[in-house]
């Protein structure tokens, strides 16, 4: 990969020279030739020319593809009944004890998901822990619905969205919404004056407008002039603006558009946008078809076995991921990626990394809680599009951290080592205490690198974090992540320094982040940014005395 230009970060002026390495012009978007495998050409398979392919079901003797087959067991979920309410409430101060409050102005439909392993819903809800209100919410709308049997609701305009994700914007512009379910800015104070709420709301609305302007400005410009003469600097300026905005969090409804743009999966100009998406989805369809053309004996048994073991235990207890239909998608994504990357193959933890993409892309097409959604009610072409988009975006993300998953996992070892060195510089008492207790960084930070902190924070938190990582650029998942992990550790410094070996290790493997909101993540990201500004390109100081 070519040298990465500095990303657009907060507090840094945007220069028109800040571009991602794969966006040097409109034509490059269409070529989209940055894939690592080099197998793109072979997969331009004319036999799969339709968007409506249905992937050949992967042979699985005992599993049924129907929606009614929920291959899971909830450990804490009780069936909905009038009496289950109070019982659940008592149980909620449990390992993951919290209540989810959904705030939504355009539909009066709300739900709780109190029994989830992790809270990861990406709608506009905020967290309430005990009596303390952690977000800007309307307290009267707290509602507990322990378990919903319905399958969720699909947007009426899925066909438009699947063909052109920017339809999400134009549709909303038409609706002139009163409020935006934006992910950002859950404020730590509970008692807020109406003025303050108003102000925050208006800040968010403003931010959203800037996003939309950025996305549409390009669209309008391109639409009014031939692509060939589109001023390239304008394209780049837009991208730089987009990165700068995204660093501070992307509104939920725009994320399915902005993530693929930041990853370089989707080009911004509209004529290229639709055709590129169509082509990449077809390409993925043909990859799936070729890969699973023969029965399961034709698969790499070792890889397939591992994936087959891990898929049912990916986000266990979350309805979306317990559906056979979602699990088959996950299997295909993981297996196709693994055989295209023989140096790493499938490594445990990569399954976790698919879930934010899948949930974000799914959210574009539905109106209800992503994690409660039954994907079998989606039209096949939409489900295939979600799967393909998730695959390509996962591929782009993993391109930046392949070292983490090849033999010996050198990327992780390097990152953990650097993290230990950095912590020794930024928090010497903590580093000394860990050393005195014989705690090795590898004992806890290995997982932090391998799963990008996804085992430490909720999917919702992860999604917010990835807004910033994607804005940072391709190598943020290895470089910037190192600073995030260091800031994350130092955050618990005082507690850790009062603990012995056993206490430290046990604490670090079940950190109290369940109630974390976007605000906590943003604090962490800011701290990481400060560290990164101070210490990046200062490696010689890292391992100093």
């Amino acid at each position, binding site marked *: 990969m070519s040298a990465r230009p500095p990303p657009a970060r907060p507090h840094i002026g945007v220069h028109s020279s800040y571009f991602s390495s794969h966006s040097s012009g409109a034509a490059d978007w269409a070529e989209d030739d940055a894939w690592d495998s080099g197998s793109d050409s072979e997969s331009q398979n004319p036999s799969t020319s339709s968007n409506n392919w249905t992937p050949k079901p992967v042979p699985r003797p005992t599993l049924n593809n129907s929606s009614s087959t929920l291959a*899971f*067991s909830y*450990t804490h979920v009780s069936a909905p009944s009038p009496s289950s309410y109070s019982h659940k409430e008592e149980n909620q101060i449990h390992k993951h004890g919290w209540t989810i409050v959904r705030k939504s102005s355009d539909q009066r439909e709300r739900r709780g998901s109190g029994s989830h392993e992790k809270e990861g819903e990406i709608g506009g809800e905020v967290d309430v822990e005990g009596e303390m209100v952690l977000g800007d919410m309307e307290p009267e709308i707290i509602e507990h619905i322990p378990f919903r049997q319905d399958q969720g609701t699909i947007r009426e305009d899925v066909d438009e969205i699947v063909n052109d994700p920017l339809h999400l914007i134009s549709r909303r512009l038409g609706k002139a919404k009163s409020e935006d379910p934006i992910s950002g800015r859950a404020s730590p104070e509970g008692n807020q004056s109406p003025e303050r709420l108003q102000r925050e709301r208006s800040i968010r609305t403003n931010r959203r407008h800037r996003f939309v302007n950025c996305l549409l400005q390009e669209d309008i410009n391109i639409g009014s002039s031939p692509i060939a003469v589109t001023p390239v600097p304008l394209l780049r300026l837009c991208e730089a603006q987009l990165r700068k905005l995204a660093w501070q969090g992307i509104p939920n409804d725009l994320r399915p558009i902005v993530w693929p743009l930041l990853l370089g999966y989707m080009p911004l100009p509209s004529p290229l946008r639709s055709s590129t998406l169509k082509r990449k989805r077809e390409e993925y369809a043909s990859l799936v078809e070729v890969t699973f053309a023969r029965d399961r004996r034709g698969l790499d048994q070792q890889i397939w076995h*591992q994936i087959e*073991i*891990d898929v*049912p*235990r*990916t*986000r*266990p*207890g979350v309805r979306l991921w317990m559906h056979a239909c979602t699990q088959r998608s996950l299997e295909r994504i993981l297996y196709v990626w693994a055989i295209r990357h023989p140096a790493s*193959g499938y*490594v*445990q*933890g990569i*399954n976790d990394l698919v879930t934010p993409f899948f949930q974000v892309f799914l959210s574009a097409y539905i109106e209800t809680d992503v994690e409660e959604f039954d994907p079998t009610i989606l039209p096949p072409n939409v489900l295939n599009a979600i799967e393909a988009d998730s695959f390509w975006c996962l591929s782009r993300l993993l391109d930046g951290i392949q070292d983490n*998953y090849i*033999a*010996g*996992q050198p990327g992780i070892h390097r990152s953990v080592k650097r993290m230990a060195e950095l912590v020794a510089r930024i928090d010497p008492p903590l580093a000394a205490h860990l050393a005195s207790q*014989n*705690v*090795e960084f*590898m*004992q*806890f930070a*290995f*997982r932090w690198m*391998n*799963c990008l902190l996804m*085992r430490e924070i909720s999917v919702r938190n992860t999604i917010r974090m990835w807004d910033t990582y994607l804005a940072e650029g391709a190598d943020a998942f290895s470089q910037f992540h190192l600073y995030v992990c260091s800031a994350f550790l130092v955050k618990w410094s005082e507690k850790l320094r009062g603990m*012995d*070996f*056993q206490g430290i*290790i*046990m604490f670090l*493997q079940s950190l109290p982040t369940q109630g974390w909101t976007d605000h906590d993540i943003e604090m962490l990201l800011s701290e990481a940014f400060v560290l990164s500004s101070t210490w990046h390109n200062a490696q010689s100081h890292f391992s100093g005395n």
Partner: protein
Amino acid sequence: MSKQFQFKLVLLGESAVGKSSLVLRFVKDQFDDYRESTIGAAFLTQTVTLEDQTTVKFEIWDTAGQERYKSLAPMYYRNANCAVVVYDITQSASLDKAKTWIRELQRQADPNIVIALCGNKTDLSARRQVTQEEAQKYAEEEGLMWGETSAKSGEGVSEIFTAIAKKLPLTAPPPKTAARGAPGAAGGRGVDLNRQPAPGQNEPCNC
């Protein structure tokens, strides 16, 4: 006065044979049908009390099973006093993998390490691929403890850990309780209250 000991135990074995479930049953008496895969390793502790009121505290490192994580394993078994190598009785390949781990332990780990071979998932015995005779015979040849368990039902779980506790050298202080192999590791951790000046042969070098 009752004696208290502390030992380091490591779990090894192929992916999805039930290592984490076995520990969860032992430590918390719980079972989940689906648990997230272990990444790196997880740390837990549990104490067992023997008939003579001796208490044995296990510091357990539950390792990840996937081959890719193999390079991390030495960090966890390096100073282990005992190892539980788990296979799945419904997957004959998992016994082969267990044998590989046992060979590695015999070569690389502390020569006095107590190794138990554990066949898990007896609740699925209808799909059994590894007979008791086969596994037991192998264990005898290699001088290992052996037992079968079901983390799901709880069958045999506490038995195997208790058996290990009894097999450990409880007459003398454990060779080294420190998981990390550095001097002074046991200090400040409130363990081994009966620790006496160790006889020379039981004290590894303090390098």
